[in-house]
């Protein structure tokens, strides 16, 4: 698995830097989008934004998470779609590692690259705007639960790509649903809404992240346990559906078709 992860990291990095103009554009566009989002959030909040400092930072955390999760889901689903189209998918599936391990290795490799980019860009934006996000090491725990949920959804979207091939439109719609899941302010929710929060993918983890990074609160471990349960549940569901979709595609003979 380590060999596979190494090979995927090398491939993804090589493909990323092969055409420098392309890679620089990705970094520039991401920076501009983040900066633009930050500026517009400040504008909407108005001159009293200073008083809403924490709220603003929470918006930034929400946006960054949304960007990351959208990327993860698009990466697996659109990657599968593109590889079925170009014909590398069947070559990849001829590997004794099996499709799940390969796509998991790909997802981790791709996330490593993307996380490095985001941390770099975020640091740059904080420098420009003077905004401060806290990066305590404990943030990795809720982030991990969000990522588990994101991969679960990514494998479900990947299953759709395996079976139906064209999923761009669906992914476009999904972006807004994701934005809701990650940015909905559940802090004020109580009663039955609290149960809904537990069932929606990633929401609880995202809320914990906001508490940690924007409001500098300490980590609530009981909430973290619930967020982890949510993440593991969605990840397991995604893996199960992906396995099922692969077997179905093999039965229908549509694995490499487009």
């Amino acid at each position: 698995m380590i060999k596979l992860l190494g090979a995927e990291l090398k491939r993804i990095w090589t493909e990323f830097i092969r055409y420098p103009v392309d890679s620089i554009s990705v970094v520039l566009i991401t920076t501009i989008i983040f900066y633009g989002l930050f500026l517009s959030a400040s504008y909407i909040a108005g001159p009293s934004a200073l008083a809403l400092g924490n709220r603003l930072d929470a918006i930034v955390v929400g946006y960054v998470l949304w960007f990351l999760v959208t990327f993860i889901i698009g990466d697996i689903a659109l990657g599968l779609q593109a590889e079925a189209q170009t014909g590398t998918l069947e070559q990849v599936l001829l590997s004794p590692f099996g499709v799940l391990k390969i796509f998991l290795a790909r997802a981790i490799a791709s996330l490593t690259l993307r996380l490095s980019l985001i941390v770099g860009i975020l640091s740059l934006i904080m420098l420009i705007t003077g905004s401060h996000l806290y990066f305590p090491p404990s943030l990795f725990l809720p982030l991990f639960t969000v990522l588990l949920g994101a991969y679960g959804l990514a494998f479900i979207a990947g299953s759709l790509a395996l079976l139906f091939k064209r999923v761009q439109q669906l992914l476009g719609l999904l972006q807004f649903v994701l934005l809701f899941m990650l940015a909905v302010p559940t802090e004020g929710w109580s009663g039955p809404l609290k149960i809904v929060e537990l069932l929606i993918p990633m929401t609880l983890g995202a809320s914990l992240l906001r508490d940690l990074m924007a409001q500098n609160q300490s980590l609530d471990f009981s909430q973290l346990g619930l967020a982890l349960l949510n993440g593991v549940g969605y990840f397991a569901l995604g893996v199960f559906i992906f396995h099922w979709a692969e077997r179905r595609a093999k039965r229908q003979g549509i694995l490499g078709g487009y």
Partner: protein
Amino acid sequence: MKSLEAAKLRKTYQRRGKQVEAVRDVSLVLKPGEVMAFLGPNGAGKTTCIKMIAGLIQPDTGWVRIAGLDPHRNPKALRMLGAVLEGNRNLYWRLTPIENLEYFGVLRGLNPGVARRQGLALLERFGLGDKRRTPVQALSRGMQQKLAIAVALVHQPQLLLLDEPTLGLDVEASETVKALVREVAQEGCAILLTTHQLTVAEEVSDRVAIIKNGQIIAEKPTRELIQQFSGAAYRIKVAGPIDPDKITKLEALDAVATEEAVFYSGPPEGLYQVLATLKPLPLIQVQQDQADLTQVFLKLVRDHD
């Protein structure tokens, strides 16, 4: 041990509410070093069979063994298999040839160092050594095809599946691919190839299997199949005119003679009597009427209509 055994493969698809039998009871066996040409008209079921052998399509019934292992259940079977599938790029276009070889080598279970070493050796052997740092999308179609075959061989498989390996290649590239197929087979790798270019099949294959409407309609050693469809007639060309007296004698032997040539279709031993009759005229050519694989293929496919 046999490199490939496929027994009674059957596949039915559901297309617009109808059941379509794509493959019916196909069985194939390949020994190490053997090249089998798998021929058939478009839509006959060749690609479905190839993909069932590669574990990419699940057969409804029947089984496959690659070097004794089932590719549908045992991932180790895939270490014994290399494939170049038709209509596919089979390669990452943004990567260079050596990067592709290294990546796919690891994907097939090699260590990165071994994959690189074997990849470099294959690039030299396939005449792509000087292109190892050029992104694949900048290579010619022939080079890309050679590289796809090299990638399929990087983990030294026991079975190579080639779906239309010479499609779209110019004459020179096609010749190189044919030579490579023969070379690889001589080293002990069994090769199952599909092609519509029957001259390619005739030149490189030891055996031929012809599939039509999902069923194998003929499966024999290539030479035997061609021989079976070749006539028993001989055409004898001589220098100088054959005199009328000789022509009369030849006609008594059931031969048809013109001034320059004789056509004989009697029993083989009678050929020597014909030659004795022609003596002392200098012989230019004695040729048996020989069919080619194209004629055999067309006859078999039409007869099964």
